[in-house]
């Protein structure tokens, strides 16, 4: 029983990191149809933000989260205004343009912060372990889990319980009609993109204490995040949560049974088959075409 719980916890912690990374992407891709390959670089910038706050200003991880969220969000806003807005009707082209942006962001970091691996110190209050149902779980992983749950709640509230969310959903449904009703579609989109980017930045800052921080770190995250979002179903926030946790548990379980290479390959195969049979995502019901 204890072993089983331990396994569930492992899956949850993998899943919560996946969700953390995928949440921003789910919003950008789900509501704007933009395939943002630079998402990984936003994550990377978040990690570097946390590192820089600590290295240059001696600010700890938790306070620097605010700065990171606002900073990366502002960058996201610039990117949307400067590049993305020209591509709203060319979904696949957003892959290319944002890939180019990602390459540029990586190189800018390499030139300014250097290519060395960096690390971010964990807040000392979170270094211990926490006993949950008799299983020792790293405190920091519990913190990530709680944090991502809170982020999800805030995001859900924003999307479904505020006027901004209503406006966004109106623009997503039909941009021109929404504009006729006086909604500033441009502004809604750029704010959404900025919010998604900000979330990516937060994700980067939060995973940084567990992983290494390097200019290239984003490239693996973006691929994983895409799998999560597509599997969960575009435009379904709850789908994203479910698929992140499912992939987390699946990876954890398979990695325990065999090893991480096989786990990764099998999870990818599962994703291929699932997308083939439910391209609309696992957790979205059939809609009229």
């Amino acid at each position: 029983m204890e072993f089983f719980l331990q396994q569930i916890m492992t899956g949850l912690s993998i899943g919560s990191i996946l969700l953390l990374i995928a949440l921003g992407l789910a919003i950008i891709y789900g509501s704007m149809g933009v395939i943002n390959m630079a998402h990984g670089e936003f994550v990377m910038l978040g990690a570097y933000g946390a590192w820089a706050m600590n290295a240059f200003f001696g600010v700890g991880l938790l306070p620097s989260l605010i700065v990171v969220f606002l900073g990366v969000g502002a960058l996201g806003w610039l990117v949307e205004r400067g590049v993305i807005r020209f591509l709203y009707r060319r979904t696949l082209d957003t892959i290319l343009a944002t890939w180019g942006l990602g390459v540029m962001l990586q190189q800018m970091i390499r030139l300014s912060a250097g290519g060395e691996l960096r690390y971010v110190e964990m807040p000392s209050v979170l270094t211990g372990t926490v006993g949950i149902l008799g299983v020792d779980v790293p405190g920091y992983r519990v913190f990530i889990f709680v944090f991502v749950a809170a982020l999800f709640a805030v995001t859900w509230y924003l999307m479904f319980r505020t006027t901004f969310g209503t406006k966004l959903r109106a623009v997503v449904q039909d941009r021109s009609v929404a504009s006729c009703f006086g909604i500033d579609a441009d502004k809604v989109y750029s704010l959404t993109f900025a919010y998604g980017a900000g979330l990516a930045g937060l994700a980067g800052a939060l995973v940084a204490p567990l992983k290494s921080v390097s200019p290239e770190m984003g490239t693996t995250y973006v691929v994983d995040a895409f799998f999560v979002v597509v599997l969960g179903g575009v435009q379904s926030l709850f789908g994203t949560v479910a698929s992140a946790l499912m992939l987390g548990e699946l990876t954890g379980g398979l990695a325990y049974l065999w090893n991480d290479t096989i786990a990764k390959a099998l999870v990818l195969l599962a994703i291929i088959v699932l997308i083939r049979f439910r391209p609309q995502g696992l957790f979205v019901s059939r809609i009229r075409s």
Partner: protein
Amino acid sequence: MSNAFTTFLNNRTAVQITVYAIVCGAIFLFPLVLDNDFLLNRYARYLVLGMAAMALSLSWGYAGILNLGQALSFGIGSYCMAMALKLRTVPVHTGEGGLPDFMVWNNVETLPWFWQPFHSMPFALLAGIVVPVFLAVILGWFMFRGRVTGVYVAIITLATLVVGNLLIIDQQRFTGGFNGITDLAQLELFGIEFDAYSKSTYYLVAVCMTVCLFLALAVTKSKAGMILQAVRDHEDRVRFFGYDVAWYKVLAFSVSAGIAGVAGMLYTVVMEFASPTFLGVPLSLSIVIWCAVGGRQSLLGALLGAILVAGMEGTLSESETFLDTWTLIMGAAFVLVVLFLPNGLAGLFEMLRRRLAAQPAEKPTEGATDAAVLADKGAAERS
């Protein structure tokens, strides 16, 4: 401007064939200008990468299949060639009976069954084409029967590529793992030795490239090619004419894979080894980028795009001035091309042709105003 010339310019196919022939001719004449084996090898490499991009243009530009896993076919071709050449290598590090060195290092004692047929060069050459095609047919059938389109195709092909890459690295005993297959013999066909750093290899690449280019051109000019473009424009509509769209897409997907397989085989000959990076995600994305820069809807455009970008990358990354900034420059260039030249450099050329032929300019895919005006003008002339 003479009338004959304008008529010529008005015939898109004639212009296309002429330009294709001129470029291929230039590629063949190139070694006469450049008598330098080291640089010839480098340009042969660019040509091979160009072939891979050209193959992608066939599936992406003509059939709307954004294959992010193009490097899988490329890599399989490359490994097929490497396996054959490995079995022919000079026995310095080999084990008993010419057992490849990395198998010795991994304590494999006998040559595995799937390596055995690679003693035969014709088999290897065939496998380098047939295996990618076969995989593409299976994967294509799997995807397109299920009506998977757009970004989902991109995700599935990408995931397949990652699985392939993981397998190659994980099955170190049979594939050389992360190190790849090194220390190969030189390719020998019809009594000609293809030293990677020689004109013979350059011409081998040039010939294969030309054949593949015109083959792909023929496919696009056939009625099937037309139907593929129709599929790209409006997939559902094509079904209502009675065409089984899935098989047409499988056709484009697998012909593209076959050409990529040939390119992969040549890459092994040019590079003198095979590495898992040949079926890596970075290479695969690069192929897409080259294709986009050159013009995804033009075979030759994609080919030249690859040569141009790869060449620029090579040159910029080696110059002191741009060492730190070349990735920035390339990144910015991609973004600008995507934003302002959705049809790449080939789109520029096509615009020029139309202007010279006094045809109306290509209508942008969206923003209907100017084109609507043009069309109305046409209607007015008619009545």
